[in-house]
């Protein structure tokens, strides 16, 4: 089981689907950011799985995964500071109460 590419890719697909559900369904902005982290991790897992089973992609996959991790760190930093800045103005972390453009 651990020696087949399929199981890693299916695992990554399930993780991505869980992240999608969390992003669409949660009301808290920080929960949505956590779900985005789950989806980024799922993509990283599939990249590394391809690298581990395909000799031509072996080293490229590790390098790309490292770059994705760095970009995800930057995304988390900016996203969380935006959430904190909005929270400071609106006094709520719930995204469905950010409706000032609707009025």
């Amino acid at each position, binding site marked *: 089981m*651990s020696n087949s590419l399929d199981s890693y890719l299916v695992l990554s697909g399930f993780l991505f689907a869980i992240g999608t559900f969390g992003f669409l*369904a949660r009301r808290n902005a920080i929960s949505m950011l956590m779900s985005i982290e789950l989806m980024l991790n799922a993509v990283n897992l599939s990249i590394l799985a391809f690298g581990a089973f395909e000799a031509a992609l072996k080293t490229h996959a590790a390098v790309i995964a490292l770059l994705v991790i760095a970009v995800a760190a930057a995304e988390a930093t900016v996203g969380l500071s935006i959430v904190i800045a909005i929270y400071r103005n609106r006094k709520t972390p719930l995204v469905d109460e950010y409706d000032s453009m609707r009025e």
Partner: protein
Amino acid sequence: MPIGDSIPLVGVRWDDVLFVVLAATLLGSALLVVTLRDIIRCGLALTVSFASLAGIYALLGNPLVAATQVLVYIGAISILILFAIMMTQTKNAPIRLVFQTQAWIAAAAAVVIAVVIAATVLATAWPSGGQRLATATADVAHMLFSEYVLPFEVVSVLLTAAVVGAVYLARREDGRPEEDRS
């Protein structure tokens, strides 16, 4: 004393056991992240899922990426998320309604995505040898600083810009007293 490839008496390979345990931990904690009501517990479950993913990276023969996962995700991003949770939690926050009203549609969409991805993966004949290849860390270093040196530098600029932007966004304006947040 070296341990064998498979568990004695049962004959199951250690790799498979590790993979099943790590994958179950990963999916279980990810489900907890998106379903628990207390958001602090969501953050802690997120840390568990990052840790089991680091284990899977090590199982895939990528010790460098596994170590980076532990350092960056568990060490930095989890702590950042926990701090943000503590800064945005109020005592009278509505606990009971953690999901949007269309959560069932979202669940259906997620199930459809999972089924489509699984069906596509299983229906495709991947040209793989069926044996995991370990990645040498020295090769990764050589490739990162020769072929991928431009993306590497772009990422450094991006990280600098992100740090500056985060400080600018989260900064408190001077001269305006902080309102009372009950």
